[in-house]
């Protein structure tokens, strides 16, 4: 776990993530400028650090309604603006980027931040990026696998010899700068189903599991499949951290939390995904055995602890800004996380 900068004794890590979406507030129909949104994301990272949150990450999406296409640049600003919070991407679309450039960027962010940078590499849930950056969608799977492998190789070896199908060969190529402590934690981003989790297991890399909604027990299957696949492939799953990511929002009561956040999530999903979030499913999200961490602080603490008990994961990251949620609401959530949620979670998950 140390290799991934995780200390199991200090309990479940709690993080925040943003996809970098840029969506009008459905209550007013008004959208803040790109500039304001980017600055608020940087500000959010600073506030998260002050509240004692462990981790903050920014996503890369190239289609409309998003604004952190250049996510590494935003992370560079966050690296400079913060001192101790871990920073990462959520996720970096490695398939359509050059792994050498990605490594250079993140190694640099790691140096600026004194060793706090991590990469979460994903495959893109939107395909517009393939056209935009000049790749063929038919190569979706192979682009990811080949480039992800190369990224892992560069992380291990400073001088790289490599040949593949989607990038010019590397002959004794020196990839610099190197991260502060030699290598970066590199995670594989995984959607819900076990089939995708198994691939992370084969590669023996840490897994970031996205969970929109649904029973904890379903996602447990993916985590178990991941650990089994890792052990079968000669890795030791005890040394591989697992992180989960999902919706989060707290208010005084569960009903208030649902009422405040539903319009954002529903309208945001309609715009970016083409389907809203059915109210019936959203209402079920309040069930203690559902992964969606939306509710009163007491309910959310109970849920996160339950998930930790079932998953045995090392990190949970919360998405609470999706769909144009106003900054004052985000501030209030961070306050509640810092004063109520984190102390309880750490108390119950820390090794005594």
């Amino acid at each position: 776990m140390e290799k991934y900068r995780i200390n199991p004794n200090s309990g479940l890590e709690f993080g925040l993530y943003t996809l970098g979406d840029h969506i009008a507030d459905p209550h007013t129909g008004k959208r803040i400028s790109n500039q304001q949104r980017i600055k608020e994301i940087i500000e959010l990272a600073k506030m998260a650090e002050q509240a004692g949150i462990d981790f903050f990450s920014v996503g890369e999406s190239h289609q409309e309604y998003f604004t952190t296409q250049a996510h590494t640049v935003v992370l560079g600003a966050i690296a400079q603006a913060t001192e101790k919070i871990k920073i990462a991407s959520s996720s970096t679309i490695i398939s359509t980027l050059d792994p050498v450039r990605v490594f250079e960027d993140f190694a640099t962010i790691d140096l600026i931040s004194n060793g706090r940078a991590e990469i979460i590499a994903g495959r893109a849930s939107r395909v517009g990026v393939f056209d935009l950056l000049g790749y063929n969608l038919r190569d979706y799977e192979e682009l990811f696998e080949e480039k992800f492998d190369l990224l892992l190789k560069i992380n291990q070896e400073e001088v790289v010899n490599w040949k593949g199908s989607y990038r010019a060969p590397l002959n004794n190529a020196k990839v610099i700068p190197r991260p502060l402590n030699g290598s970066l934690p590199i995670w594989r981003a995984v959607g819900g189903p076990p089939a995708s989790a198994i691939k992370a297991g084969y590669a023996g890399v840490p897994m970031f599991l996205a969970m929109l909604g649904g029973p904890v027990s379903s996602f447990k299957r993916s985590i178990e499949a991941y650990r089994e696949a890792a052990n079968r492939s000669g890795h030791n799953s005890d040394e591989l951290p697992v992180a989960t990511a999902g919706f989060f929002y707290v208010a005084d009561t569960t009903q208030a939390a649902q009422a405040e956040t539903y319009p954002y999530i529903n309208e945001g999903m309609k715009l970016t995904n083409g389907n809203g979030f059915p109210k019936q499913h959203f209402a079920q999200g309040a069930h203690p055995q559902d992964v969606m961490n939306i509710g009163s602080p007491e309910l959310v603490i109970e849920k996160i602890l339950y998930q930790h008990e079932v998953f045995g994961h090392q990190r949970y990251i919360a998405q609470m800004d999706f769909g144009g949620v106003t900054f004052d609401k985000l501030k209030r959530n961070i306050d509640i996380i810092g004063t109520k949620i984190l102390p309880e979670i750490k108390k119950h998950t820390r090794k005594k």
Partner: protein
Amino acid sequence: MKIVGLSGSIVGSKTRTAMERTINIISEKYPEIDVTLIDLADFNIQFSDGRNYLEYEGDTAYVTQTIMEADAVVIGTPVFQASIPATLKNIFDLLPEKAFIDKVVGFVVTAGSPKHYLVAEQQLKPILAYMKAQIVQTYVFLEEQDFYRKEIVSDDVIFRLERLVEDIVTLTKTYESIRKEKEAEYGF
């Protein structure tokens, strides 16, 4: 209320004729309803390649987005090789899994032989159910003998089409009010 008619074949005339008649019945009986007929023969639709429907362009984007915006969909399908035509299946493949959630879907089926009567029951309904449609269980089945020179000549068929339209509109209103009542109970 928005109703979209989808004529699912790019060959022949029976399905289009039946769909045009159905759409006329809707606009005559319910002038307040916003109704659109999409005849796939008029569009150049690409095959589904798995992307989100919002990311298609041109005719494919128009057709998928128009269907997604509907409150109810009337599908017209012929029977080809004892199944629905590939053009119609492609539309389903282009849409998200839960595309028909909170939508009422009814359909009319045309065929060259009465032996095909159960094709829609056994092949179309399961797809619609999987995609979360509220299915109007009774559909209208038309044969060659019901048409003459691109007109429907059977009064029985016209009565059945009128009942189908009524059922679609009534069920769309009913499901909407049930949903609103239920959603109000959630209190958010």
